[in-house]
């Protein structure tokens, strides 16, 4: 039985999405900037996508900017804001457990003379609002906090942070990386006082290479890509029409039965946590129950290197990831796991299971069974 439990890395595309994209690539392939009928037809897909996404977030469709995915959205949000507001201040705030798509642009900005405060997290991966309050200064131009952590599934208190930031400094912009949260939760940026929100399509059963950034109207952000002036000059380059249409279709489908789907996924997560947690020397990272995301289970398995366990599971056709797959093809220890205080011996022994709406109870049962078999077997052979 093939069991794909690496849905935080990427997901299987919805058939309906793939069909729609195929049609756009082979039949409705016009350039939305073209003046003829083919162009108008293509533009219609863009408009429809904007409407769909705006409706889901309860925002204005003018506030949706299509990008090449989560990483680009984060880059525009961070670098674009810094460039547009550096005269007002040069201080930014983020957390220690962000995705590299946030941490690396932050490091770049530090090199450019900006100052960045990295908020610590508790052992479950949550930031403290008191820390945030203390960090905000008159010259703070941006706070960036992820919605859902990609390695351990912890959900950050976004609405509370939003209210706090605006109370402390109404000028400060608030960016949220919702790559792991979108499609799992109902997220309304306006209500949460979020100015920018990053989303990626391939985490919600859409295509790779496309995503969007919500930018609140009047938020001052500069483009980082220049050219033909598409998307009102905010992001030049011919729009990825099939990708964008696929993104909107996937979002539509994923929110269609969100509540039932999440209930079911929380059930599966609970089942996996209980089953795996019973095995000797297995520790669950992150928040239990509804405090954590429905799709992520992080386990530390004492005495076994994650890479070995991953490949042993692979032999049983179970696909998981070691730490965070997006960034984990280089064997580095994870900043998130360190930040939540996972002991050193377990840092390199942590694997992540991530489920999707396609995951079944039978697959989870099979996975628990496999873990029960593999873990004692691998423990027999260790390095001395």
């Amino acid at each position: 039985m093939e069991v794909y439990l690496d849905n935080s890395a990427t997901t299987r595309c919805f058939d309906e999405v793939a069909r729609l994209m195929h049609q756009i690539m082979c039949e409705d392939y016009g350039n939305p900037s073209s003046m003829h009928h083919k162009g108008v037809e293509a533009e219609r897909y863009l408009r429809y996508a904007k409407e769909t996404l705006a409706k889901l977030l309860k925002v204005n469709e003018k506030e949706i900017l299509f990008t090449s995915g989560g990483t680009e959205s984060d880059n525009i949000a961070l670098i674009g804001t810094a460039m547009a507001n550096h005269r007002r201040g040069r201080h930014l705030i983020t957390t220690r457990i962000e995705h590299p798509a946030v941490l690396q642009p932050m490091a770049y900005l530090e090199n450019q003379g900006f100052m960045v405060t990295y908020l610590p997290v508790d052992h479950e991966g949550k930031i403290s609002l008191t820390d945030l309050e203390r960090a905000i200064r008159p010259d703070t131009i941006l706070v960036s906090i992820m919605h859902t952590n990609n390695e351990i599934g912890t959900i950050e208190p976004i609405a509370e942070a939003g209210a706090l930031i605006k109370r402390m400094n109404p000028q400060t912009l608030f960016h949220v990386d919702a790559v792991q949260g979108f499609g799992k939760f109902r997220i309304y940026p306006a209500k949460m006082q979020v100015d920018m929100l990053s989303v990626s399509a391939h985490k919600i059963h859409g295509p790779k290479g496309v995503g969007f950034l919500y930018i609140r109207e009047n938020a001052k952000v500069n483009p980082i890509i220049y050219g033909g002036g598409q998307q009102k000059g905010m992001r030049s380059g011919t729009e990825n029409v099939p990708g964008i249409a696929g993104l909107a279709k996937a979002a539509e489908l994923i929110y269609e039965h969100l509540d039932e789907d999440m209930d079911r996924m929380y059930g599966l997560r609970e089942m996996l946590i209980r089953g795996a947690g019973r095995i000797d020397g297995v520790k669950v990272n992150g928040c239990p129950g509804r405090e954590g995301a429905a799709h992520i289970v992080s386990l530390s398995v004492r005495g076994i290197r994650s890479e070995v366990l991953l490949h042993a599971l692979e032999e049983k056709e179970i696909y998981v990831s070691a730490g965070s797959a997006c960034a984990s093809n280089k064997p580095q220890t994870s900043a998130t796991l360190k930040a939540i205080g996972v002991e050193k011996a377990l840092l390199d022994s942590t694997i992540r299971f991530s489920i999707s709406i396609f995951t079944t109870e039978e697959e989870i049962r099979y996975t628990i069974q496999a873990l029960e078999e593999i873990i004692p077997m691998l423990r027999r052979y260790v390095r001395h």
Partner: protein
Amino acid sequence: MFTAFLIKYAEIGVKGKNRYLFENALVQQIKYALKKCEGEFVVRKTDGRIYVDAVSEFDYDETVSGLAKVFGISGICPMIYVEDEGFEKLGQAIVSYVGKVYPDKKKTFKVAARRARKNYPLNSMEMNMELGGMILDAYPEMRVDVHKPDIMLNVEVRDKIYIYSEMIPGPGGMPVGTGGKAMLLLSGGIDSPVAGWMIAKRGVKIDAVYFHAPPYTSERAKQKVVDLAKKVAAYTGPIYLHVINFTDIQLYIYDKCPHDELTIIMRRYMMRIAEHIAKETECLGLITGESIGQVASQTMHSLMATNEVCELPVYRPLIGFDKMEIVEISEKIDTYETSIQPYEDCCTIFVAKHPVTKPNLNIIRKHEKHLDEKIEELVQTALDTDEVIIVR
């Protein structure tokens, strides 16, 4: 502007009666290398020389770097042909050649004319003088130096007139296929690809064996070895890469033998398996990337312990090299970047903190006896499930 290459070869020239064998092998290897280059070429052997003529448009840089990977070539001279239409025309051609090839004229030169066709109206000395004079007239900044010229301008009168002055060094050595075949123990490290390259440079055809230990080593580690084999194959021609699943043997040794002897015993089984495949595929020897003292399993004592299980000679071309010297070659042959990708290979996964560095052969043999019950069966299974990947 160049339309042909004169191929210079060093050592083949001194071979006696077998010379034609070496030359034919070199022609074969050159043709093989040119297949990957854009353009059509004729490789011809005339007057005891090898020429590559381009018979269509071709990519000069690609062709030169392709030829520079053919063992047996010591130098590649890009060349132009001029039809014999009188000495005046030849002079113009030479002047224009110098004009194009040497934009910077502050150089010394010498004309070296040679006549294969002795009925040419001028003799070599006269040609040298006349042509030299024409060049000086055209480019007054240039100077003649007959002892150590910057530019040695070769002008050869044959069926046509051949003009060349530059030489791009080749890798040297001898054409692959003239020296039999050997089996390389290829890991994902820096050393073994270099070792294979060095032996292949002496005209030896290479096959390789890689020991894979899933789930302890990943598919990417295997891909890395295939990538390395590909880099080496750019010089040696197709490599048959044997992938042996070594996990069960390794775990069995782990169960039965002292852990500080694990690496040595494991390597002894690797050698046995490699030799078995080598013999079946008509290899005349094994190649390893070992160098004395680099790691515990490469001390003189350890080498003796791994060596004794083989009948075939084991070639260790890096035996006296320092790591830096090996790295230098791996950079030159473009395997370094691939080698340093951080995927674990099967030699390191169970390695003891303090492996024996001076293994006692009698003790090793005694401990290997603990494996008697199942090891033959495991080795046989490993050999039966040998996966062969043809890497080109």
